[in-house]
């Protein structure tokens, strides 16, 4: 009698990724070069972007990434999988980058810069979008914003839209750029980001809000222009 293959329930995306990471770590321990190449492909670009938040030049950031991987290889025997590989990897990366930033003489920590950014007086939406104080219905929208999710997915998720978002992020003040990069691009939770950047939960949230708000404005402008064209 033929053995019927067992049908496996599809795993949720997250656990596929973590199983892959775990498998790659196991392979890496045995000196598997393909596993190493795959991990570098998976995380290298993101690591470079995060390192770049700390150090002044791309060349130095590349050195930080290289140093991080050496640290990973040296420590792989001790990695117990209690945190995810990604969390562990980026903890080594941010420590390495911090040390390097101090050595480069750019040692003003994010926590100090954050005070300045949080203290700045700013609003998320242009005040002209609302009915002014003193008029009837003051504080209501003067004209309604336009839905993004009515747009075709191909337009919202287009290379042009991504370019607009990237440009907006690159133009952010340093800590806001760091927070949105780690939260929304790299996908870390607020606790990890507060740890890595030395921020209080409150400041992290304020800066994340300002960062997201500016990116939203950039997307709105970009999508409106496109719509008008």
């Amino acid at each position, binding site marked *: 009698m033929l053995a019927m293959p067992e049908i496996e329930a599809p795993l949720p995306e997250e656990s596929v990724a973590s199983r892959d990471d775990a498998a790659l770590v196991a392979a890496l321990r045995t000196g598997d070069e393909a596993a190493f190449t795959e991990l570098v492909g998976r995380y290298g670009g993101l690591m470079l972007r995060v390192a770049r938040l700390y150090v002044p030049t791309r060349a130095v950031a590349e050195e930080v990434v290289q140093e991080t991987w050496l640290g990973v290889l040296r420590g792989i025997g001790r990695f117990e999988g209690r945190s995810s590989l990604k969390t562990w990897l980026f903890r080594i990366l941010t420590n390495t980058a911090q040390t390097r930033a101090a050595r480069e003489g750019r040692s003003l920590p994010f926590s100090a810069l954050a005070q300045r950014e949080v203290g700045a007086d700013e609003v998320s939406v242009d005040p002209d979008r609302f009915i002014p104080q003193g008029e009837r219905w003051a504080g209501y929208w003067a004209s309604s914003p336009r839905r993004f999710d009515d747009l075709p997915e191909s337009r919202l998720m287009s290379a042009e839209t991504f370019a607009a978002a990237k440009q907006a992020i690159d133009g952010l003040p340093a800590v806001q750029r760091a927070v949105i990069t780690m939260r929304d691009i790299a996908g870390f939770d607020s606790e990890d980001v507060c740890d890595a950047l030395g921020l209080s939960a409150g400041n992290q949230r304020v800066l994340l809000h300002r960062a*997201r708000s500016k990116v939203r404005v950039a997307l709105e402008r970009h999508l409106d222009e496109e719509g008008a064209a």
Partner: protein
Amino acid sequence: MASELSCRELVELVTEYVEGTLPGDELERFEQHLVYCGPCATHVEQMRETIRVTGSLREADLDAAVADGLLEAFRGWRDGRS
């Protein structure tokens, strides 16, 4: 009763709302506003879409020279182990 949240106030609370950190009474005012205010519902949706777009940004791979350097370092590590 305290006045309702205005649209201008609401837009400053969106991140706290989507993060789930609004305290109970503020959450109530926020959601109460969303029940009747279409433009604010649209604004919240725009913020969610913004997060989704940012989350979809992909990084370019490392430069080939950097990747080659890493591979060399890897081989050094592998061959240096006993």
